[in-house]
């Protein structure tokens, strides 16, 4: 089953695909552009993986890793399908990252690899933006790069795990203004889904609604204001996002931080 969460006519609704339309839980059928698409679920803890596709790691010149490169993201970064992500005027390299998002469905503690897939409720597409201009070497990737408002696009659907026949061979594709720029396959994950669940649950408890963004394959390019970015994963749909300039976003003045010391 594919489920979305949309805002329409003053309320938030669960919604389902209905041909080229979307059907609300109360039966109303509407065009995709008539509703506001929220993230398909209310997320718990968001884990993200750095360099989890072999070719992408090579692209960024990283060598072999001792353990998965996991970092955490806050809930404020999340937006839904057909949303807008701001590209600040001063940056030179902002890029998308198409990723398979794994949603945990049961409390998970010390789960062995062999049982790990029983803890997966389903999947979503994620587009996890980064602004490389802000990269600093403390707690990489630092939050100013990867935890920006509107920088994590989720959706359009939450798809039940049972509906995905083989999650180890899903193709991921990203189109920028219609041109295919990124292409990969989940068979090339450095640390696969059961290994990630085994690893994380070995030192912390995972809970329903926690989301693991499993990393992005090679093929990242800079995006500019006005670009339309579409991330696609086999069986999960197409996730649209538009890049906005400060002006498009409605920001007139940009306050620069000075990092000044306090008076004491």
């Amino acid at each position, binding site marked *: 089953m594919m489920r979305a969460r949309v805002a329409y006519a003053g309320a938030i609704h669960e919604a389902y695909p209905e041909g080229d339309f979307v059907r609300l839980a109360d039966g109303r059928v509407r065009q995709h552009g008539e509703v506001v698409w929220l993230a398909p679920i209310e997320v718990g803890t968001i884990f993200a993986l750095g360099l989890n596709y072999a070719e992408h790691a090579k692209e960024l010149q990283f060598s072999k890793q001792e353990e998965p490169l996991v970092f955490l*993201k806050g*809930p*404020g970064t999340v937006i839904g399908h057909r949303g807008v992500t701001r590209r600040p005027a001063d940056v030179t390299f902002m890029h998308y990252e198409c990723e398979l998002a794994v949603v945990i469905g049961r409390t998970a503690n010390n789960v062995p690899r062999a049982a790990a897939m029983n803890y997966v409720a389903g999947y979503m597409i994620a587009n996890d933006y980064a602004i490389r201009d802000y990269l600093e070497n403390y707690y*990489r990737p*630092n*939050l100013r790069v990867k935890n920006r408002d509107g920088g994590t696009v989720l959706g359009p659907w939450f798809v039940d795990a049972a509906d995905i026949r083989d999650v180890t061979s899903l193709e991921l594709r990203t189109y920028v203004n219609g041109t295919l720029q990124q292409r990969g396959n989940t068979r090339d994950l450095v640390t696969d889904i059961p290994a990630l669940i085994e690893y994380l649950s070995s030192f912390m*408890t995972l809970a329903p609604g926690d989301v693991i963004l499993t990393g992005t394959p090679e093929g990242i390019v800079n995006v500019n204001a006005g670009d339309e970015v579409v991330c696609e994963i086999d069986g999960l749909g197409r996730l649209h996002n538009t890049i906005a300039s400060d002006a498009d976003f409605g920001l007139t003045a940009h306050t620069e931080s000075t990092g000044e010391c306090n008076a004491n």
Partner: protein
Amino acid sequence: MFALADYLVHVEGEVLPRDLDAQALSAALAAGVACWAPVTGAVYGTLLNDRAALAALGEAVHAAPYKAPPKAPVLYLKPRNTLAGHRARVVVPDDSVGVEVGASIGIVIGRTATRVSAERALDFVAGYTIVADLSVPHTVVYRPSVRFRARDGFCVIGPAVAARRHVANPDNLALEVRIAGKPAFLASTDSCVRNAARLIADVTEFMTLSAGDVLTLGVPHGSPVAHVGDEAVISVDGWAPLHISFAGAAEQKGERS
């Protein structure tokens, strides 16, 4: 919305948190009751926001892997599984290294804060609390593993949130940590690189803080280490102190079963 009049405390086992005056709070805590964390929002930890911590890194900030001193605030997330309250029992994963007890002030956000100026920043604060930001000791902060800071119970908060009006100046608070009854650490928030208002301004420049979220002012340099069997007590000025006890993995499992 996150609002309180005096001191917000969530006694373990009670359905909702209670908003008590100072006297009622000490009465509620006197019986040795345990609490849950008095907040449920996202918790962001701040690192290297202490002049002594930066000084300790010294010239290393110019060498690999850092290559330059930090510019933006250095932040990380303490996920929901880490949240615990007053009198929590926390499992020490490896007693040969222990657990670092990072004492910090937690700034509790009262309303949505996006791109706020330092001048207005404190208007967005509901109150302040004590945060014990626990971690497995590690020295390199380039790309530390989440298993150092994201373990269950590794963010102990409370006992209460003190309303902003009860805290005259968040930038001049004395923090004391006692371990096993002995003084182990003394610091003041006046050693911060960014004071509370400046930190809120610089963080909300790129990410929104929501009502109920907590942003720590950062752990001062030289945090003490606790081991299995220890009790740590963190005090801030005259606030109700935060107690944490440390247990071995086997011991904790035994209790739960």
